[in-house]
């Protein structure tokens, strides 16, 4: 038997295969397909303080080996989550991490304080990298001062595991990672989507209502992998890696590059049972390669 357990700060994951925020709903939707206890954890859909309708239709466009989305953080607000969703999912035997989003630092703080009360949510993923909202979102995540400020203020009110989710739309992502590490982040997760665009040549119009949107899927994998590797070499805190993971080999590559835990995002749209398959294949790989613990894969790129 191989040992799949891995820790990110205080958070114990039964295995390193988790689901990315915005692509696994509030975990319930995935429970229609598989037992949530199988996977390492769920990074729940991005929540905001108040209800958000999100952007107008159309919100997505298919691209070569990927897709653009312009959802814009549609959600019913944190109170709705606490009252209506949390009770239903809180006893899932897996890690539930909430993805929090604000337009202002005050939003982030208020949200975090509410989330702090939830027993079964042992960590937050601070999203300072959403490219699909007009205010806040990525604006914080693309500069060191912005990223530092949000991290510092949230850190003051939160003492469970704080994971800061980084934007790839920057010149030097390891600089931002170091900045949030300096402000007390317990881990970083990367990457969020790349700002992209699609046009319909026939109608000469943008394909998304918002003109630009976030690119995800295998298309971005080479860039995401490079960033995980750079960041893992730049910080001491654990790295949660994602971006285009479609199979166990991809997941292993991210771990070799330095990710302790990986998130499966867009791939579940193609196959919602994929995370389960990846766990099985990861076990097979470890048996075949005589790797005892997943910890022996993390950052073990041979160069």
């Amino acid at each position, binding site marked *: 038997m191989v040992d799949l357990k891995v820790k990110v700060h205080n958070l114990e994951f039964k295995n390193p295969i988790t689901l990315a925020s915005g692509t696994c709903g509030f975990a319930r939707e995935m429970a229609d397909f598989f037992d949530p206890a199988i996977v390492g954890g769920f990074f729940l859909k991005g929540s905001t303080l108040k209800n958000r309708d999100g952007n107008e239709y159309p*919100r997505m466009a298919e691209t070569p080996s990927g897709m653009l989305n312009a959802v814009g953080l549609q959600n019913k607000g944190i109170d709705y989550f606490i009252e209506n969703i949390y009770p239903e999912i809180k006893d899932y035997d897996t890690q539930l991490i909430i993805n929090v989003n604000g337009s202002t630092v005050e939003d982030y703080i208020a949200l975090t304080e509410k989330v702090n009360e939830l027993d079964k949510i042992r960590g937050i993923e601070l999203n300072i990298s959403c490219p699909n909202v007009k205010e806040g979102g990525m604006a914080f995540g693309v500069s060191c001062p912005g990223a530092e400020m949000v991290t510092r203020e949230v850190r003051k009110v939160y003492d469970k595991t704080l994971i800061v989710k980084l934007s790839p739309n920057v010149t030097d992502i390891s600089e931002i990672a170091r900045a949030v590490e300096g402000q007390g982040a317990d881990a970083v997760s990367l990457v969020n989507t790349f700002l992209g665009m699609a046009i319909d040549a026939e109608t000469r119009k943008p394909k998304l209502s918002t003109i630009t949107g976030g690119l995800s899927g295998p298309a971005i994998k080479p860039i995401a992998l490079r960033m995980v590797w750079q960041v893992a070499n730049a910080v001491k805190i654990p790295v949660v890696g994602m971006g285009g993971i479609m199979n166990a080999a991809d997941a292993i590559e991210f771990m070799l590059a330095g990710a302790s835990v990986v998130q499966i995002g867009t791939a579940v749209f193609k196959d919602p049972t994929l995370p389960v398959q990846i766990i099985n294949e990861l076990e097979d790989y470890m048996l075949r390669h005589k790797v005892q613990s997943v910890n022996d894969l993390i950052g073990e790129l041979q160069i």
Partner: protein
Amino acid sequence: MRKFKRMAKKFVADFVVVDNKPLNATNFLIKARSNSVLPTILPGQFVNVEINDAKEIFLRRPFSVFEVDYNQNTISMIVKILGRGSKKLTEIEAGCNISLVYPLGKSFTYPAATDKVLLIGGGSGVAPMLFLAKESGLDKTQVDILLGARTKEDHIDVESYSKYANLHYATEDGSLGEKGFVTQHSVFVNDLNKYDKIYACGPDGMMRAIAKVAKAADVFCEVSLENLMACGFGVCLCCIEPTNKGNLCVCTDGPVFNINELKW
């Protein structure tokens, strides 16, 4: 091997294509068989189909269920060639595997035993209407089906459904049935109030036109909406439709909506 403990409400599985036959120039009937027993699948629900071996097609494509055979474990769908994915799908050969996510979405509200209903289908929207006609449990006298298309050639042959319903046709060029859009057809224009329920599936424009008249006439009316989907099971929030309850997902809160919910 980790055991896959199914929570058993929705599934992903490889089906085997048992039949793929052209219904006319652009529509194909594809029937696929599962190895496992099928769950209940209702009219209005859909499946999300992976397109095999197609360069540059990344996501699945949604198609309404047209027919379910619980003895044979088959699901059928009518696929109209629209773009690259549907084109590729219609080229699949019997014997090939095809991966489906199923069953997805909400079905039409079943009519009551005494209801008189009008089913309106446009384009590939015929599929769920025929499915509903068959499954409704109503007597043929209670069910009118109105099908709209551009020309006679665009209509697919549904004569076998005349045992479940009275068939009416509208074509834009008058080559079959009455000339004009479905909303100009006599069963729609003259007799709307004799129906307890109207169900419709077809292009957006048609749905809106029907909804407008049905709303004015205050008749119960459900429409099935098409929409760009990434996941099909409610996690991506790409497939929204603005409603009285805010933006709802067409894939889980729909594709069937009561017109009174919609902001049309």
